[in-house]
């Protein structure tokens, strides 16, 4: 077995209450690494086209990668892969916490859950004894994610759902500790299988090719991170909310259901504000991560709980025109406890508010008012009253009540908190990403509009290139499985410390902006490992990884996801943006919205796809994507 892998796949059939261990397929691991890549391969191969995402035939795949179980910073994430009930296409999400470590300790790389239990169950997996217990979970059914994990204790590592997953809210997630695999409704799939929790543990250790080099280099990386302006400074001090004031200043902070990109009260929901006014002593992290981007806040009646992340601050804050951090923190708590994605939740609430404003829906929700929001969140999680409709997400709401022109989703997945009208590459990424409108499948905005390389985010230069490179890289990162935040460290400290108005900075930006095909060529070069994640993979597995290798593997995963989508009827026609984003300007120099029609053909061509967004046979062959 390749070093870094436990070498085992655990297959669990909930319908029959049977399990079996199988060998990890080495060839698949070489081609797809693990995590999201390995999971996508399994889903493609082992499910039939057109299955019901909430039926027993869907698979729920928990997958780790070779970096999991090591002490590499940001390496304790697992991927969940299934058919998405929200989009009907590829469903996936990654999650921090501690569950990935538990799987590796148990000697399991991948857990494949099939079938559905006749009544609520939970799994308890003791890797050292090769034991899987199917336990009655009726007592836990209905309980929140905090309470459930507390009840399960600390001897094992857990992944659980809350009432939202049980009730098949289409954007329900799976929770580990205080983190969530939030997107695409993976929690609803777990709920459809009547699986309340998976608990796993063991005492196995990760076997590495070169542990000495790994250890010494990891020590260096920790120092590098500690000294980095993003990973060691702003994220450490203010969490992901550090970006609120930046996106607001750049007019890309979703406000009033994306009607605007600027919110006058943004400062009061920013990470800096939380640090000064709400932080309750503890900054939290996933295991082995020195970045500590999480932070505790006080919620009335609940005590000290995990505070909201940037996406939550924006989608449940500015997007609803709420500048009250205490309310956003309270709603974040409820969403976490119910176990649902705050991005889709906030976007759906914003959509409902606009429907109400236009007289299209009788709902007690209004922009700028907190009244009724808590109750609606609880109703969504339990599918009560009108909450039952909102639990189906924005796309389905717009099909029922109208308002498709301002329904903020791509492929059914609600948009994240970077308005693409001020971040054109991010718009291309939203439109083309296989799981739908999400930012962590590339994070192109960091390369054009929020990071230190202040290229013009509103011209066409590099706007088809950046998403390709970033999507490929994200696919590889999500297969190791590493945190996407690691990519924020790729732009060195020296660039961050340049004055934006200095000659050197302006020259660097111009060179980057005009690099054209050179950018992708350089990123595709195969050579020696340079970045920390390439070196870690190399030291752990013994196989050489470089930027070019990761671009190739990432492209392979991305194309396989695309082929899965096409098989399920999610075609290139869905590679678009909401009409509001395409047609309504938010900048005074714009006549219209995002120029996607001008960029999409170039993106397709550079991907090696035809004009309908279908990968050409030679592209698939070159990438070794077997169908």
């Amino acid at each position, binding site marked *: 077995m390749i070093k870094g892998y436990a070498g085992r796949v655990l297959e669990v059939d909930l319908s029959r209450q049977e399990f079996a261990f199988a060998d990890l397929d080495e060839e698949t691991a070489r081609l797809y690494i693990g995590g999201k890549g390995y999971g996508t391969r399994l889903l493609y191969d082992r499910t039939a086209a057109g299955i019901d995402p909430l039926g027993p035939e869907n698979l729920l795949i928990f997958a780790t990668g070779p970096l999991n179980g090591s002490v590499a910073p940001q390496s304790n994430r697992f991927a969940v892969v299934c058919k998405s009930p929200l989009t009907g296409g590829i469903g996936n999400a990654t999650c921090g916490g501690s569950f990935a470590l538990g799987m590796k300790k148990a000697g399991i790389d991948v857990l494949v859950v099939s079938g559905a239990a006749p009544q609520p169950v939970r799994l308890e997996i003791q890797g050292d004894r090769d034991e899987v217990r199917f336990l009655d979970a009726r007592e836990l059914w209905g309980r929140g994610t905090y309470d459930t994990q507390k009840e399960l204790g600390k001897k094992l590592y857990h992944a659980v759902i809350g009432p939202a997953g049980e009730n098949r809210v289409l954007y329900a997630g799976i929770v580990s500790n205080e983190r969530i695999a939030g997107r695409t409704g993976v929690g609803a799939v777990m709920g459809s299988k009547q699986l309340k929790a998976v608990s796993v543990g063991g005492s196995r250790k990760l076997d590495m090719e070169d542990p000495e080099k790994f250890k010494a280099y990891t020590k260096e990386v920790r120092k590098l991170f500690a000294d980095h302006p993003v990973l060691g400074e702003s994220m450490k001090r203010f969490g992901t909310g550090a970006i609120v*004031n930046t996106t607001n200043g750049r007019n890309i902070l979703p406000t009033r259901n994306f009607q605007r990109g600027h919110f006058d009260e943004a400062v009061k929901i920013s990470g800096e504000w939380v640090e000064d006014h709400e932080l309750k002593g503890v900054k939290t992290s996933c295991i082995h991560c020195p970045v500590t981007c999480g932070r505790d806040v006080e919620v009335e009646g609940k005590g000290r709980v995990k505070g909201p992340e940037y996406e939550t601050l924006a989608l449940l804050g500015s997007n609803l025109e709420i500048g009250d951090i205490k309310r956003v923190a309270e709603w974040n708590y409820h969403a976490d406890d119910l176990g649902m994605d705050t991005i889709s939740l906030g976007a759906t609430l914003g959509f409902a508010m606009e429907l109400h404003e236009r007289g299209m829906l009788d709902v007690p929700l209004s922009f700028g008012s907190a009244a009724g929001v808590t109750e609606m969140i609880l109703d969504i999680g339990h599918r009560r009253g009108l909450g039952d409709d909102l639990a189906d997400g924005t796309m389905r709401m717009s099909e029922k009540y109208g308002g498709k022109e301002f329904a903020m989703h791509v492929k059914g997945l609600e948009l994240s908190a970077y308005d693409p009208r001020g971040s054109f590459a991010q718009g291309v990424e939203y439109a083309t990403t296989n799981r739908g409108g999400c930012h962590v499948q590339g994070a192109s905005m960091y390369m054009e509009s*929020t*990071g230190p390389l202040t290229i013009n985010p509103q011209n066409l230069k590099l706007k088809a290139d950046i998403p390709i490179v970033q999507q490929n890289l994200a696919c590889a990162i999500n297969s190791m499985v590493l945190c996407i935040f690691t990519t924020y460290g790729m732009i060195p400290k020296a660039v961050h410390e340049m004055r934006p108005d200095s000659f050197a900075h302006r020259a660097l930006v111009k060179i980057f902006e005009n690099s054209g095909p050179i950018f992708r060529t350089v990123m595709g070069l195969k050579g020696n490992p340079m970045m920390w994640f390439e070196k870690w993979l190399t030291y752990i597995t013994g196989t050489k990884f470089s930027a070019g290798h990761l671009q190739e593997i990432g492209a392979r995963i991305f194309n396989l996801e695309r082929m899965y989508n096409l098989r399920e009827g999610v075609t290139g026609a869905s590679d678009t943006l909401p009409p509001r984003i395409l047609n309504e300007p938010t900048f005074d120099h714009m006549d219209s919205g995002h120029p996607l029609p001008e960029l999409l053909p170039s993106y397709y061509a550079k991907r090696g796809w035809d004009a309908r967004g279908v990968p050409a046979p030679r592209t698939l062959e070159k990438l070794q994507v077997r169908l």
Partner: protein
Amino acid sequence: MSVTVELTYDMGKELGEHRFELEGVETVAEAVSRARERFGDKAEAFDQLGRLAAVAVNGVLASHRRGAKTRLADGDTVSFVKAAAGG
């Protein structure tokens, strides 16, 4: 003519206000200069904390328009923005 100025959080915290109006400024250069003057003996802090911030007008970096010479219109928002990463 009136424009709104928004400072970075650190600048606002140190200087006592995050957001204020300026009357009669016509260019980015004038807005920055008048904002600096506003803080009197804290002008050095204004310079130091604003050193790594770019200036945007209604969300567009001045460097992508005419730099310090970028003309302002009534109701514009001039923002000092830092590079940042979120999630």
